[in-house]
């Protein structure tokens, strides 16, 4: 019986930290918008561009850490299956614990990045990138999907 009681104590220890914790959340807030492009001329969007950068809001246990990874498209898809190459480089993503676009820590969106939620259990991830239309790029509207994956470590 003593061993059984001990087992229950261990069980309680393992599960109790979940109680009352803010759940993990990722919300897509703003699309990454390159706007109007001219064939043959690359166009970059900065992660600090309030009107064009992509934005995700994340939530989790206050002051806890989580890991974010992106699933990034290599192209946008347009009319009749035409593709428009995208490029993401070393500092195209940024994390702001205060959810302020002017206060980011830059990181490489191609690599996992460790974040710390704010005291309120929040944060924001911003994303820029470069679109590279070919000189013969077909005219029209192009879209792609960007996914942010968040994993927490209690």
């Amino acid at each position, binding site marked *: 019986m003593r061993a059984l009681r001990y087992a229950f104590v261990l069980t309680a220890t393992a599960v109790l930290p979940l109680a009352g914790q803010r759940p993990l959340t990722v919300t897509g807030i703003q699309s990454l918008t390159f706007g109007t492009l001219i*064939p043959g001329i690359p166009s970059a969007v900065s992660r600090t561009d309030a009107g064009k950068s992509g934005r995700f809001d994340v939530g989790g246990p206050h002051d806890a850490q989580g890991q974010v990874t992106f699933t990034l498209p290599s192209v946008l898809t347009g009319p009749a299956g035409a593709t428009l190459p995208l490029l993401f480089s070393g500092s195209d993503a940024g994390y702001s614990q205060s959810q302020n676009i002017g206060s980011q820590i830059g990181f490489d969106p191609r690599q996992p990045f460790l974040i710390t939620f704010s005291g309120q259990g929040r944060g924001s991830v911003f994303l820029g990138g470069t679109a590279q239309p070919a000189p013969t790029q077909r005219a029209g509207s*192009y879209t792609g999907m960007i996914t942010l994956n968040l994993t927490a470590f209690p």
Partner: protein
Amino acid sequence: MYTASKAALATLVLALGATAAVRAQGVNGSITATATVQSPIAVAGAQPLAFGNVFPGVVKTVAYSDPTGGRFDVTGQGNAGVTYSFNLPTNLTSLGNNLPIGSWTGYVNGANSTSGGLAITPSSTSASSTLSVGGTLYFFVGATVTPPANLPAGSYSGTVTLTVSY
């Protein structure tokens, strides 16, 4: 006691399993990336500026609206603003002889017509215009040649270049 130990062990395994499940938790969210690509600009020299026969010492003018006036056809994104400029020869040449050409005149229109548009003076200075709703723009060009009195006979030519960009 033996049974109790087994139960305890099973519970511990379950507890560790629960812990592992906590470690594995993750969520995701998505946004879109969007772009709109304009139609590439194409410029075609549609009709040469042809003076026909000229005579030494006799000035000859071809108006942009004449049947032998030059014309460029431009296509691109409908309603898009563009800038344009010309590279104009100062002479037509033939075997090292020069036939001066100057006094350029021009007209720009969204339609293939020399009415309803805007008169321009072709030059190397950049100017602005707008493609039609259908994405067309037409440039008409005229000029004057001033053959010197001692101009050798021959066939004279030069190149007029129009550059258009968004």
